[in-house]
């Protein structure tokens, strides 16, 4: 053969859903050992295309060539036999089973659990993805769960690995680890299809990129030769808006006060909170940087009321609320966006209208204990329109939305509740660049209307863009917040890694 043959070639793939054309005449090709990025806004059709390749969704028309041969992949088992592995955007692990049992579940051949555990350990170590095969999945962090998914693909010696937004929930360190693994796989000849909204990641990792918008291919690029701005422009079809943080002129008073909050985690792999104090004032955004697993989940639960604590440990607008549950704190003006959207922030099987009811029922959606479903519907419609949620309408089930769109819906729903205090975990996980900018600006505007906002995020850039003050949560301890102008990314980064300087907690004072 004269020229090397493409590992995968897609020709004129189309897929129509009742309400949208998800893929419209898509063609692309991936060479052996190539890391190929798919770029596009939330709802551009990236996941649908990947599921078609993996046989999880059937295309309406078009052809797929595998090593030059035309193939018809009608189910994932067949795709796996060809050598295609996929890590989904939403994980599909059983929480009550161990890592190795979860992996065994998707293997197509007969297995022996003990031998498999050894293999899992071997493969995970070879690719720098350490995993304890016998840990139960519910005790794993998001990053570790993803490792399970990746390792279970690697066990089948894939020739093409598809990763759908693998890093939207990973820590920066975990991302570096993952990239090493992927580069190593590529050097062994594995082709990789890689979806991410983080443009700098794409630039450092990928050899080529296909850009999609509204279900169509709008261009191809060599990411290294582009800038994040030019890539963003190709994705959203216009310049990326820049966030502006206007000064706040309203009255300043504390809305959230946390006073010497200590909390032992009841999860054996959790982090206990140690003596946390924090104030968030009306009109400001306080950012908490830190890597998940350092007490983030515990702090969020204690603030939202999902875990109740000592009465006087949490104050909301001057009232001690530590002992109140989430519902009663919401009655007092708190809203919350959790990091898990499906299953916590939204009920997967229910429609968006019914998910609006989840926290929106205080907005006059019920009377005499009966629900006015038309109001919930109208609320959902408004949220969809205002936050540009791409979906099949208020009747669409939450789980049918792509991750970023569901995030927009949940953030939008909480903002529309007219809060006094908003707590947001990872506001833009999995949200595309255009929508991220929009969400950040919305948070800024909301704070300037007098709302106190607390943002917990792993993305430093994001925190520096929107926060007025920044603190770091590491190993269950919170550093004193610093004004953004005084904080520098490097020292915050060091603190995130847990290297507190001795004086840090006492000396630095937070200007109001």
């Amino acid at each position, binding site marked *: 053969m004269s020229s090397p043959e493409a590992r995968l070639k897609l020709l004129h793939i189309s897929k129509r859903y009742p309400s949208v054309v998800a893929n419209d005449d898509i063609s692309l090709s991936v060479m052996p050992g190539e890391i190929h990025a798919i770029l596009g806004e939330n709802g551009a059709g990236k996941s649908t295309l990947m599921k078609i390749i993996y046989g999880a969704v059937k295309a309406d028309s078009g052809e797929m060539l595998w090593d030059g041969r035309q193939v018809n992949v009608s189910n994932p088992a067949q795709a796996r036999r060809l050598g295609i592995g996929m890590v989904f955007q939403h994980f599909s692990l059983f929480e009550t089973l161990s890592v190795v049992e979860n992996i065994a579940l998707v293997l*197509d051949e007969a297995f022996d659990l003990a031998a498999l555990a050894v293999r899992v350990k071997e493969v995970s170590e070879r690719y720098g993805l350490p995993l304890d095969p016998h840990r139960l999945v519910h005790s794993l962090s998001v990053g570790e769960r993803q490792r399970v998914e990746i390792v279970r693909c690697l066990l089948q010696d894939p020739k093409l690995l598809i990763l759908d937004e693998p890093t939207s929930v990973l820590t920066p360190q975990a991302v570096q680890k993952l990239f090493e693994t992927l580069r190593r796989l590529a050097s062994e000849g594995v082709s990789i299809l890689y979806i991410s909204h983080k443009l700098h990641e794409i630039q450092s990792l990928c050899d080529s990129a296909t850009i999609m918008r509204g279900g169509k291919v709008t261009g191809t690029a060599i990411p290294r030769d582009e800038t994040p701005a030019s890539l963003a422009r190709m994705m959203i079809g216009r310049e990326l808006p820049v966030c502006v943080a206007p000064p706040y002129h309203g009255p300043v008073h504390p809305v959230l006060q946390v006073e010497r909050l200590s909390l032992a985690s009841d999860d054996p792999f959790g982090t206990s909170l140690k003596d946390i104090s924090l104030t968030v004032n009306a009109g400001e955004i306080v950012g908490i940087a830190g890597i998940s697993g350092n007490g983030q989940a515990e702090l969020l639960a204690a603030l939202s009321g999902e875990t109740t604590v000592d009465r006087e440990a949490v104050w909301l607008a001057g009232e001690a609320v530590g002992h109140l549950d989430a*519902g009663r704190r919401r009655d007092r003006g708190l809203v919350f966006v959790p990091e898990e959207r499906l299953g916590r922030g939204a009920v997967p099987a229910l429609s968006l209208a019914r998910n609006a009811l989840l926290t929106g029922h205080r907005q006059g959606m*019920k009377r005499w204990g009966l629900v006015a479903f038309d109001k919930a519907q109208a609320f959902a419609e408004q949220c969809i329109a205002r936050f540009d949620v791409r979906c099949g309408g208020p009747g669409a089930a939450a789980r049918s939305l792509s991750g970023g769109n569901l995030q927009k819906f949940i953030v939008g729903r909480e903002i529309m509740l007219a809060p006094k205090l908003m707590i947001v975990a990872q506001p833009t996980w999995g949200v595309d660049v255009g929508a991220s900018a929009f969400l950040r600006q919305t948070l800024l505007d909301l704070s300037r209307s007098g709302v106190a906002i607390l943002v917990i995020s792993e993305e430093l850039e994001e925190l520096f863009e929107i926060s007025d003050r920044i603190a770091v949560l590491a190993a269950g301890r919170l550093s004193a917040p610093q004004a953004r102008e005084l904080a520098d990314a490097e020292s915050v980064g060091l603190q995130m890694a847990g290297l507190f300087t001795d004086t840090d907690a006492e000396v630095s004072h937070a200007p109001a």
Partner: protein
Amino acid sequence: MHLLEPRAQPSQLMRWTAPLIAIAATLLVGSVLFWALGKSPLDSFHVFFVEPLTTGYGWSELLIKACPLILIAQGLAIGFKARIYNIGAEGQLIVGALFGGGIGIAYGETGAAWVLPAMVVAGAIGGALWGAIPALLKTRFNAEETLTTLMLTYVASHLLSYMMHGPWRDPEGMNFPQSILFDDAALFGLLVEGFRINSSLWIVIFAVLAFWLFNARSFLAYRLEVGGLAPAAARYAGFPAKQTVWFSLVISGLTAGLAGVGEVAGPVGQLNLNISPGYGFAAIIVAYLGRLHPLGIVLAGTLMALIYLGGEAAQLSLQMPAAITGIFQGMLLFFLLGADAFIDNRLRRRAR
């Protein structure tokens, strides 16, 4: 080996088709059973499912049996949706019958008009109390309600047996373990002379409508549904989990208690050891067969009542054993669970 893998999007259409598949499979296997017993399947089915409905009396009996099943299943379905599994409705029925029957024994002879309403209220309270015990045990000590509700059923039947052998035994009853026959004031009035169907039917109709409205429109029902579908989302929204447990168990106990009164103040007419032919257990099947939907439950309850009737007819005219009713109920549940398993999961295709 794991042969099933979960489906991403279980079909809603299939969920409603599953009961029909289960019924068809039950009939199929049932006919093999009849054939193996040396009876003509067609004739047997005629005796089982058609003959009972050829007379007005048969229809009346059908309603009498369907009423308690439908009533209990309505209450159970509320909890099942919230994943609170009360499988002790039989015990709650007995305690409801004891509470209501106690009033009937004590005050029936006064002939006062308040006796029957008081029995109904007492029965509801009795059943609700018996449901409240597992609720307390679960919210306080985290005790599995599947075990406690079932175990309390045995406590209830011993309680009934004690009362029937002791304090409440009919002094002129030749030492049979049964109470006096209730006075008219302690009985539901007959709707049609000559038939046993009585005015407790109105309670059931009212209950079906109330549960339908509750399910379709109430915020509480929504909360319970969220608690069942995604417990973390319920915690996130601040829906109190303990309240869900209390409500589910108390409401299902209450309906079972009502059904108990319906039996002792209706067709049974006294307290004795056979006030229920397992309605509390059969109602579990009815709830799932009716897809936990108030109107679906009405259809399912009617079918289950027909199986009871057919079972009796089969004993009489085909000389079949009494176990035939249980066999049909069991097959129905088995095939329904089987169908559901394939709606939520798919068979894994072997590689190679």
